[in-house]
């Protein structure tokens, strides 16, 4: 009875459940370790005019402050997947390009102190126009992020397979849609941690970080640090608190902290906080896809045409633009489609750079493709499942090479689909739909068929090069995985792999795989999962991503164990007095197959190899340690026709769900969700289901709740876990999981990846079901309740009393404050005017104003502490008055900055004499960015109103005593106040 295939309980849990995990922040800090904190850009796009760190440096306990200038001197810019003139460093050098971009590092004796010092750094920014929308950014007259690159589109390529043009010309039907996949992130609960030391004598960096790979980035880091690879010793801790791709993006911080340690001359540690993580760690790409399909009269898809505009944020950070190419061989999905055209563009915008993320490219592609299939079904009046069935790649065709080059290894997609329909109870859901609709309820069923790639080909990214460029650059291919298995002198087995587990249970599964080969109890195997680039085997493909563990890494362990088993047999054979072919390893014994009573304990075999190396057969080799490298033979480089087998194995998923939309509030109740997987051989079914459930939770979050939101000016709006909303136990429905197991012929274990698939299938499956329920197209995510109601598009009853007296109303999305209103002030327009133009009077009206001075004609500079309730921050503002028409009207504009954020805005004030004084009408429009916008958006409007009211109250109060000089008034400031004060969440 093999251990592989059994749901063994995890060995990891024995430690983790006691709180004994050794996560990055749990490891001992070296003596003298200092702590770093990052100062980050509050605005999306600006030139850095000056950075004054003197006050920060003067704070006791602060050792060093590092700025972009230091980094530019000490490092080389990061390599990226596309050669363009858009250099990037771990700190902004002279320009910031997204909210949260690191601008300076403070190194101090503890984190508290370091953060104290952050507040003392004075950065002067010259704002630049920001661009957030990828379609606008791709235009010729958009604000440029990287001047030397000349354009925001940093990569463009067209691909053509077969003859799509003819297929479209001859099509019976052509369907087209444009969808927008949003920004989201898997946000592991453990944030980034880096601990760096620099040894000046040999110019060596020793860094421990919860990095997850791919180790292609080791080269990128070493090059940035200007050292050879063997002088960047990178260690990963034994445990990692989730990653889902995200911890790839710790790599710029490895470099930053390396330099920090070097300049401070001490070990330096940094633990990312959640605000930093949400704003600036990384994100999935948002993508605009226009997709067209040609269909014949029978509903066979004859061609697809994609136009993909990929938004990678402010920099193309390695390995981007990989998100766009990871799926390249799978652009025809689960379908046999002979003709394909693809137009790919990669654009930069003023948002956080993107990177690895569970599903990596799959959610974006399938959101377009599987939405389109549904639209096609509607157009052809076919059942969406039937349309899928007609186009599925037939099981007998396996292994099947897709039009863009993926070699689909195994599976019978139609059989899996049929099983899902049967065992998941689709008919019942259809009945429920019929019954619900009869009652006028909005019930829908959605489907998604998805091919899930795993084990990325290290050469897929070179598909972005032309065949000629590739030829010049040299081929890139394969997916090297490595594992080491050894017997120690006591006969105990240890396994080490160059993977970096993040909770998937690798130690348990490796023990199962190795135990089977060596005939031992998996409980006796110890697996080491921390990794050291100086001492452990690794290669560029090492790491834990692209679902490569079960197929590639466990496969390498199997190969190593097989070899070791063979040697153990060779050592045992003479002692058993049988030929090698007659030896088997079982129950901790080497045993004669023909005479099972003839045995020797493996412990003795191992001891002999260690103690009597001269006494064992020469061909058994010396040393009981085997390191195996598995390369993935099918993973060729892209061919001259740009066909690429982008991954090593391909699973299949068929999902469907029934759900009901509540038209009263837009909420979605998932009635049943069925996911059927064929991921080849399951090494540990319980852990496999755990991966599927986890992927489903991310997929559901992406479908319904999660978005990293930006305002049009680049202000970041999702700064906390109350603004960025991962699902909790109250939001997640039950999930029905079904399995087929068609072993992969290409992986040593027969396993394929399965942890990412539901990130690809679930968002679009739910979107399809919602579209079915409401009868409207669903073209973007997440389907929050307000968005669903918007889609339903019911007009709301009108305002019964349209001309409302103008108090303050506002609109926008939290950070964009707009308001207008009017107040009657008991003073003449001339008196009010005088106050506006008199700094002293004005100062008295602004709550918290410390200082207001005229800095030029009609220009003021003010310092004020503004906020609401307990939330207050000090702001420095400059305001200019324009178009003065005394005593009737003026315009003003200005900006403000402080620790809580920044604001820019304009306003207008009009004074009209009325009975009893002057009516002051005002209007303001203010954009807020930085901390308060990220964490307090929902409270800014109300706060602004509060401050304005205070101003008018003061104005009215002061006007009571007409003789006092500080009478009514009020205008100008109020308009800017709101913004900074806005400061207050």
């Amino acid at each position, binding site marked *: 009875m093999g251990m592989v295939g059994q749901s063994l309980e995890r060995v990891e849990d024995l430690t983790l459940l006691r709180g004994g995990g050794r996560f990055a922040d749990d490891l001992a800090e070296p003596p003298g370790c200092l702590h770093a904190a990052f100062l980050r850009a509050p605005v999306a796009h600006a030139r850095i005019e000056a950075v004054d760190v003197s006050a920060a440096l003067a704070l006791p306990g602060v050792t060093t402050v590092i700025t972009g200038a230091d980094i530019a001197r000490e490092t080389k810019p990061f390599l990226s997947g596309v050669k363009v003139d858009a250099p990037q460093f771990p700190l902004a050098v002279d320009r910031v390009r997204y909210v949260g971009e690191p601008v300076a590092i403070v190194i101090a004796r503890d984190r508290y102190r370091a953060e104290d010092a952050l507040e003392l750094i004075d950065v002067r920014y010259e704002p630049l126009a920001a661009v957030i929308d990828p379609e606008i950014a791709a235009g010729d007259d958009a604000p440029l992020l990287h001047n030397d690159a000349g354009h925001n589109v940093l990569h463009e390529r067209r691909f053509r397979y077969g003859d799509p043009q003819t297929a479209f010309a001859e099509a019976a039907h052509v369907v087209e849609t444009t969808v927008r996949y949003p920004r989201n992130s898997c946000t592991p609960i453990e944030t980034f941690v880096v601990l760096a030391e620099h040894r000046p004598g040999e110019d060596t960096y020793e860094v421990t970080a919860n990095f997850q790979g791919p180790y292609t980035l080791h080269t990128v880091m070493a090059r940035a640090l200007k050292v050879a690879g063997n002088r960047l010793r990178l260690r990963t801790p034994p445990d990692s608190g989730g990653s889902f791709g995200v911890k790839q993006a710790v790599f710029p911080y490895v470099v930053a902290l390396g330099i920090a340690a070097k300049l401070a001359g001490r070990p330096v540690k940094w633990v990312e906080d959640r605000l930093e993580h949400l704003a600036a760690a990384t994100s999935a790409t948002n993508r605009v896809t226009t997709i067209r399909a040609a269909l014949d009269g029978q509903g066979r898809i004859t061609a697809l045409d994609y136009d993909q505009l990929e938004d990678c944020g402010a920099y193309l950070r390695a390995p981007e633009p990989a998100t766009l190419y990871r799926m390249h061989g799978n652009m025809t999905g689960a379908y046999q489609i002979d003709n394909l055209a693809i137009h790919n563009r990669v654009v930069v915008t003023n948002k956080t750079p993107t990177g690895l993320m569970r599903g990596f490219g799959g959610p974006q592609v399938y959101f377009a493709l599987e939405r389109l299939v549904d639209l096609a079904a509607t157009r052809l009046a076919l059942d969406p499942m039937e349309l899928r069935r007609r186009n599925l790649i037939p099981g007998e065709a396996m292994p099947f090479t897709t039009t863009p080059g993926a070699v689909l290894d195994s599976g019978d997609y139609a059989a899996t689909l049929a099983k899902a329909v049967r065992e998941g109870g689709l008919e019942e859901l259809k009945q429920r739909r019929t019954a619900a609709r009869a009652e006028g309820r909005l019930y829908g069923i959605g489907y998604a068929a998805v091919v899930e790639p795993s084990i990325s080909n290290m050469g897929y990214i070179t598909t972005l090069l032309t065949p000629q460029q590739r030829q010049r650059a040299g081929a890139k291919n394969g997916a090297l995985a490595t594992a080491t298995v050894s017997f120690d002198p006591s006969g105990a087995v240890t396994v080490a792999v160059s993977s970096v587990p993040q909770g998937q249970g690798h130690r348990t599964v490796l023990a199962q795989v190795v135990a089977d080969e060596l005939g031992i109890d998996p409980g006796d195997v110890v697996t080491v999962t921390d990794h050291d680039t100086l001492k452990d085997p690794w290669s560029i493909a090492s790491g834990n991503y692209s679902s490569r563990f079960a197929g590639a890494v466990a496969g390498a362990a199997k190969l190593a164990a097989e070899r070791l088993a063979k040697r153990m047999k060779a050592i045992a054979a003479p002692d058993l007095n049988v030929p090698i072919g007659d030896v088997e390893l079982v129950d901790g014994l080497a045993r004669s197959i023909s005479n099972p009573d003839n045995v020797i304990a493996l412990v003795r075999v191992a001891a002999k190899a260690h103690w009597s190396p001269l006494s064992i057969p020469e061909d058994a080799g010396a040393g009981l340690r085997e390191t195996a490298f598995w390369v993935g033979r099918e993973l060729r480089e892209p061919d001259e026709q740009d066909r690429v087998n982008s991954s090593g194995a391909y699973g299949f998923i068929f999902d469907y769900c029934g759900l009901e939309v509540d038209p009263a509030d837009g909420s979605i109740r998932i009635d049943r969700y069925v996911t059927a997987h064929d991921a080849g051989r399951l090494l540990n079914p319980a852990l496999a289901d755990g991966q599927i459930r986890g992927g489903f939770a991310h997929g559901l979050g992406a479908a319904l709740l999660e978005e990293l939101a930006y305002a049009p000016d680049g202000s970041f709006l999702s700064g906390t876990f109350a603004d960025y909303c991962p699902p909790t136990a109250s939001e997640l429905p039950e999930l029905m999981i079904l399995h087929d197991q068609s072993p992969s012929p290409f992986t040593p274990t027969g396993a394929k990846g399965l942890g990412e698939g539901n990130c690809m299938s679930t968002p679009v499956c739910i979107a399809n079901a919602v579209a079915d329920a409401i009868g409207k197209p669903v073209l973007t995510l997440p389907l929050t309740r307000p968005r669903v109601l918007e889609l339903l598009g019911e007009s*709301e009853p009108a305002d019964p009393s349209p001309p409302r007296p103008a108090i303050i109303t506002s609109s926008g999305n939290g950070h964009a404050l707009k308001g207008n209103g009017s107040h009657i002030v008991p003073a003449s327009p001339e008196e009010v005017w005088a106050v506006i133009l008199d700094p002293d009077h004005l100062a008295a009206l602004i709550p918290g104003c410390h200082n207001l001075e005229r800095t030029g004609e009609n220009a003021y500079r003010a310092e004020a502490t503004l906020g609401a309730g307990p939330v207050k921050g000090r702001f420095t503002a400059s305001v200019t008055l324009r178009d003065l028409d005394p005593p009737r009207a003026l315009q003003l504009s200005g900006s403000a900055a402080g620790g809580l954020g920044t604001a820019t805005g304009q306003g207008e004030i009009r004074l009209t004499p009325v009975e009893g004084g002057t009516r002051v009408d005002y209007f303001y429009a203010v954009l807020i960015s930085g901390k308060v916008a990220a964490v307090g958006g929902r409270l800014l409007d109300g706060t602004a109103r509060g401050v304005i009211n205070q101003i008018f109250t003061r104005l009215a109060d002061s006007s009571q005593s007409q003789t006092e000089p500080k009478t009514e008034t009020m205008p100008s400031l109020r308009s800017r106040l709101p913004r900074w004060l806005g400061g207050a969440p």
Partner: protein
Amino acid sequence: MKPAGFDYARPDRLDEALAVLAEHTHTARVLAGGQSLGAMLNMRLVTPKVLIDISALAELGHIQADDGMIEVGAAVTQDQLLRWPGLKEQPLLAQTLPWVGHYQTRQRGTVCGSLAHGDPSSELPLVLAMLKGAVVLASQRGSRTLTAADFQTGTMQTAMRDDEMIVAARFPLAAPGCSSAFREIGPRRGDFAIVAAAAVGDQDGVSLGIGGVADTPAIRRLPWLDGAGLDDALNTIAWELRGSSDGHASAAYRRTQVRNLGRQVIGETQHALFNR
């Protein structure tokens, strides 16, 4: 994300707390459960010089019913109130408390702290306003009682003076023959409400309270209406409150939910009163 430095005072008696508050007017903050304040301190949105921890002040740990009121001391957690046997005498409060934050935050967060925080989407200020309750403020100068309506003046703004703190909140007991209901909608369970609605009905009509939309809880008294009459009344309220848009919901969505939740809570109240 670590708080700025502050002095920490843990008074043993209320007068000590008030003395510290008087001494550090403008720069002291009272800390009770810290479930809102703590996050703001960690983010350095709030940077007091002195934090006065009243969570262990025995004088403020009482829950008592008399004079037709439930008086809840400032150190009483939401969870303590939720478990208090007398709570059934005030059904609206009992219906609402489970919606305040989470199991974990309710065990530390205080009733009065939530009132002091003045978040427009918080449940407890809405309930206090619905019930025409009051807060008792104290300073070295003496104490005063403000009605809910007078207490909360705006988004996170109250009429509390810098040397004052809340020592208790007073929730009137339910009048005989009343019924009540509460609903809210937020991004997830336990999140702040996008819109919260409460209703208390009696034979003559119903009071509707809406949170999450205007800067302060909005309370409207309506006669019993149905059909189009109720639709019109709710629509008027929805527009009057002039909610704004933010990252979670548009102003239009808020209006829709004022109508929707308003209808639900009024309906539930009506049902309980007349159909049973």
